[in-house]
């Protein structure tokens, strides 16, 4: 057996107790094996069977549905009998536009095997082929950015939606992102439009500054600090800006500075402003927009409305990293270090032959690399797995 798959199997044998799926009998399970076979529409009666299956198959990827079904094994969605679905939010570092996420970027020619650092060129400099593979890597800075989004998401879910603790499931995907599921009964029945609405709430996409700084005739109504949602967040932050500007620390637009006292009262007590200038209205709305932009959660909007999604089985291994798709409590999330805490593979030594440049990286506190392409190195399995699964090395 492929030593990597053997390592996965060992993990599933030793750590099987950490694998769990709530309400497993109602889920669709899907696995992708090491030879690339996709097995869909699997139904599993209980956790024991799931754990046994993973230890037996040692798949490369293992997923379970957000949907709860009467007949999870049915081939077609319409026949599965959807009873409800957890609300899923997907945070993927690739969508955050963070520079650190390009750390260690490299490429490899599929025709001749030539490789190099950085963004893939249009054509292979050696053989001219255009069939080049883009190879990404994991970096702590990138994962940290994703984690910050996840933490902000949890804050909004708690303050606005009133879901926290047991009603939530948070997990590191094992790769470059986080998933958050709302488990509580009252959200299970939501339809597609309702889920879309939740997605555009947390991502601030449906925010409209004209509604929140609302003008009717000559009266301007502002949000208030005791309100919830984006209104409250905006009011609190603006109030703080106004109060700090008293000491001259922050520069306010002059239209706003001129009516500072009235605005403070409006934000605190909801006293509307009479005869606002057009500049004032414009500046306030712009400030609100900026606050939302800075605090919005950048989720993948397409994921949340879709009740037929699957995500990784908690604590299963990610087939692109060998890291655990770790289930976390909101408290654990804060101090979570993916490249340390999510290591699941052993430290048995294995020899890896690199086929592309490998950047310097740190796993479990230990530094590895950088390695040139075409060298042999002895590494613990958890570090070797990263190189192998990221397509930058082979087992000789």
């Amino acid at each position, binding site marked *: 057996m492929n030593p990597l798959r053997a390592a996965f199997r060992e993990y599933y044998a030793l750590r099987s107790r950490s694998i769990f799926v709530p309400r497993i009998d109602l889920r669709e399970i899907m696995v992708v094996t090491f030879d690339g076979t996709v097995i869909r529409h699997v139904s599993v009666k209980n956790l024991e069977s799931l754990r046994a299956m993973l230890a037996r198959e040692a798949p490369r990827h293992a997923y379970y549905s957000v949907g709860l079904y009467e007949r999870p094994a049915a081939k077609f969605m319409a026949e599965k009998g959807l009873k409800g679905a957890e609300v899923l939010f997907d945070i993927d570092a690739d969508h955050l536009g963070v520079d650190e996420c390009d750390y260690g970027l490299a490429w490899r020619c599929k025709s001749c095997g030539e490789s190099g650092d950085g963004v893939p060129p249009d054509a292979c400099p050696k053989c001219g082929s255009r069939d080049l593979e883009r190879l990404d890597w994991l970096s702590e800075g990138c994962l940290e950015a994703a984690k910050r989004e996840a933490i902000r998401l949890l804050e909004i879910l708690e*303050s606005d939606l*009133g879901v926290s603790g047991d009603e939530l499931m948070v997990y590191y995907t094992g790769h470059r992102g986080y998933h958050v599921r709302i488990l509580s009964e*009252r959200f299970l029945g939501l339809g*597609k439009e*309702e889920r879309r*609405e939740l997605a555009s709430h947390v991502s601030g996409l449906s*925010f409209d500054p004209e509604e929140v700084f609302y003008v009717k005739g000559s009266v301007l109504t502002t949000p208030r600090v005791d*309100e919830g949602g984006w209104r*409250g967040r905006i009011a609190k932050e603006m109030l703080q800006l106004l109060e700090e500007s008293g000491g001259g620390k922050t520069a306010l637009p002059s239209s706003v500075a001129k009516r500072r006292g009235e605005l403070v009262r409006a934000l605190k007590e909801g006293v509307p402003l009479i005869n606002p200038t057009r500049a004032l209205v414009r500046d306030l709305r712009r400030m609100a927009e900026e606050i939302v932009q800075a605090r919005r959660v950048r989720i993948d909007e397409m994921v949340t409305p879709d009740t037929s999604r699957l995500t990784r089985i908690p604590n299963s291994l990610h087939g692109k990293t060998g890291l655990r798709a770790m289930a976390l409590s909101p408290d654990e999330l804060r101090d979570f270090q993916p490249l340390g805490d999510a290591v699941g593979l052993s430290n048995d030594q294995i020899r890896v032959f690199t086929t592309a440049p490998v950047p310097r990286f740190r796993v479990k506190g230990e530094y590895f690399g950088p390695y040139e392409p075409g060298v042999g190195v002895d590494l613990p399995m958890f570090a070797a797995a990263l190189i192998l699964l990221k397509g930058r090395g082979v087992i000789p």
Partner: protein
Amino acid sequence: MEELDPALASRYPFTSLGERLIESEGLTEEDLAYDPLLEQSRRHARGRLLSAVSGGLYLDDLYLPPLDAVATYLIVRLVSSWIGDPFLNRLVAEHESKRFHRLARDEPIHILAWLGGELGAAIRPDGERAWIDISSYLRAAAGLGGPKWRLANRDVRSGQVLVGRRELARLLQELLRAHLLEPTPCPSLSPPLRAIGTEVIRRLEERKASIQSSGPSRQTLPPCIEKLVEKAERGENMSHQERFTLAAYLLKVGWSVDRVVDLFRSAPDFKERVARYQVSHIAKRGYNPPNCETLRSWGICVEDCGVKSPLSYGRRGRRRR
């Protein structure tokens, strides 16, 4: 909770007050069909169903005694379940919920809170406004157009959304609509009620026919669009791209927004407000349907009819004739 006026069953027959009345009176389908004392209920139910089909608003029976009002409502529901046509069900739900809103919008907040509870929402009055649980809010507001309904612009705290009294009445209208659209078993009906049903079916067919004849005739539709029209009529699930293509095409060849919306009415996830908003958006912007190449890549094209855009299909056909 304070004692509710039993007369409320007259305005809101779908509530538990209505149900209790049915039970205490032992009202059966036979009574509804034959009881001479319920003649006016049968007459009003017929009026309401026909108004639903024609897109009107029937208000002649606003002040019936509770039992008669409940009977009327029951007949409306029985007959439309008996017909079992998804298009009709949408029309009836639209009509009944509009009628409900007429009455509810003037109710005090505590009555609205009670009505909300009857419709499965948790509502807590707060002065002249009220807090509604977020799931119910989403169920109701997701179908409403306009930025003021978007959650991101509202006061939302710990799973509750603050709404004004009028807004609450509007949300309840949507919840009632959803309730009326829940599938009901097909009942068997006695002849007098079946007669009402038959008449409704006839009017319904007339309306459907007028939708179809108002557009280009079937022969001039390109095959891809014809297929989409059939899908829409059968109430099959359609992708976003399919709906867009169909709406943009039909609007370009002269269909009104109303007629296009009507066509989509059988869709399983149809929402009047959303559909109307989307279709009028396409109309306002004057979008063209995608060209054949795009339609091919979307898997919507069904055969190569040698044109570049479905819009040129009809034209070519006309020129040839």
